[in-house]
């Protein structure tokens, strides 16, 4: 598939991705199916694990392959649950809206995607950073107002915004 880049001294040779896939996809699939219940979702997620490995250009050595793949799979599983719980929350939110405010199916799908993307982008940021960011970008509040609500200085709000925008900028690729 791709030529291996030069690497440092290694006890064992890195395993090419196709070999990794052949050797490890079956147990990974079973492991995921056991947690998800659905074979289709498990297949998708197992696929995503290898996409991560390829995208990350990580060198995987045979001895570490299992724990390495399981760590990635675990992260994806959390993302999956988080997304499913957000999706349910959004559906419940919509169910509580009166009829005239119900968005169309297209808008729902789009908003759901945006919610999931934003959630990923904000993951790991401190509370105040997230709150400030939501207040500025979604509510359109002035920085002074955000500062007052969070009981911090305006210059802190600027720092929060810079931090949140930086995190989002790196993730946001249409």
């Amino acid at each position: 598939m791709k030529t291996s880049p030069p690497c440092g001294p290694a006890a064992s040779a890195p395993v090419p991705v196709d070999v990794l896939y052949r050797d490890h996809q079956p147990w990974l699939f079973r492991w995921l199916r056991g947690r998800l219940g659905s074979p289709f979702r498990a297949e998708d997620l197992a696929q995503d694990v290898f996409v991560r490995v390829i995208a990350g250009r990580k060198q995987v050595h045979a001895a570490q392959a299992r724990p390495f793949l399981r760590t990635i799979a675990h992260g994806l599983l959390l993302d999956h649950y988080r997304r499913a719980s957000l999706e349910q929350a959004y559906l419940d939110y919509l169910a509580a809206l009166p009829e005239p405010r119900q968005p169309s199916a297209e808008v729902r799908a789009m908003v759901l995607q945006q919610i999931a993307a934003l959630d990923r982008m904000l993951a790991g940021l401190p509370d105040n950073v997230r709150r400030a960011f939501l207040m500025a970008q979604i509510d359109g509040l002035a920085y002074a107002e955000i500062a007052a609500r969070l009981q911090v200085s305006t210059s802190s709000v600027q720092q929060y915004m810079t931090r949140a925008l930086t995190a989002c900028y790196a993730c946001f690729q249409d």
Partner: protein
Amino acid sequence: MPASRTDAPLDDPVARTAIEWWVRLQSGQGGPAAAEACMRWRAADARHESAWARLEGLAQAMRGIPSDFAHAHLAGTAPSRQRRAVLKGLAATLVLGGTGAAVREWTPWQRLFSDYSTRVGERRRVALPGDVRLDLASDTAVSAEIGGGKRQLTLWRGQVAIRVQGVEGMQPLVAWADGGRVEAVHARFALLRQAAGMRVDVYEGSLRVVDGEGGARLLSAGTALYRRRGAWREGPADAGAGAWTDGLLVANGDRLDTVLAKLARYRPGRLSASDEVAALPVSGVFPLDDTDRALAMLQQTLPIAVVRWGPWWVRVESAEAEAGAA
């Protein structure tokens, strides 16, 4: 789509600069000069413009997310939030999984203690139990606590029109704003909270207003009470003020700067008037949901020029001054 979880500084200096501009403009620092300088920076290099476009794309995508949903679900506690959210989600599924209806009943935003808010440019109508109807103006936040012997609202920000239909002897609805409170059994009224103080306009029925120091007074239909620099004043209710619930701004010989201040509540960024035109009298009906159109309508009937520096900075000047400068 790869999702990096790091929030390490960007190694792309163009991106860093774009973010600096964004924060500077959004914070209102530097005024029109900064907005102009940012435009020059964007125009100087295609990479600048494309970094800026990425931020605008992000802002655009976020605008579709309902504010109350975002604050309830995306603002949560940080580091181990993901893990805990998963656990909570699983627990909820286990306990309530079999009964879809029960899940719906107990979702947080349906609890009677809840928060409602609108973004800039958005209006929203909310019906609460006990024949209480709220109309939230742009950029408004209200929380409500109704049930369990309580009928309370708090206006945290912005403007809300309240209609409460009750009968004599019923427990009054209490609306708090800025330390004072309004008690109403059967009335239609509007509460406004702004930096300068608060204001109550009564359109139907009557209210009891209790200020932060405990002083109470009765207010009847057609009157307004407002506080400016700590002192309460009474006056006639603003006749056109209720029109915003229909998305309209009614001006009847009002000063241009007053009209612009009302429009400004419906758009992000700054909207201001120069001294020469601030006092021009304005009459007409303007759409609140399309403030650009409202500005265009003003421009057609008044000797003014609408000058824009980027998306957040709009200044209304005398048409002559603008022509002289051009």
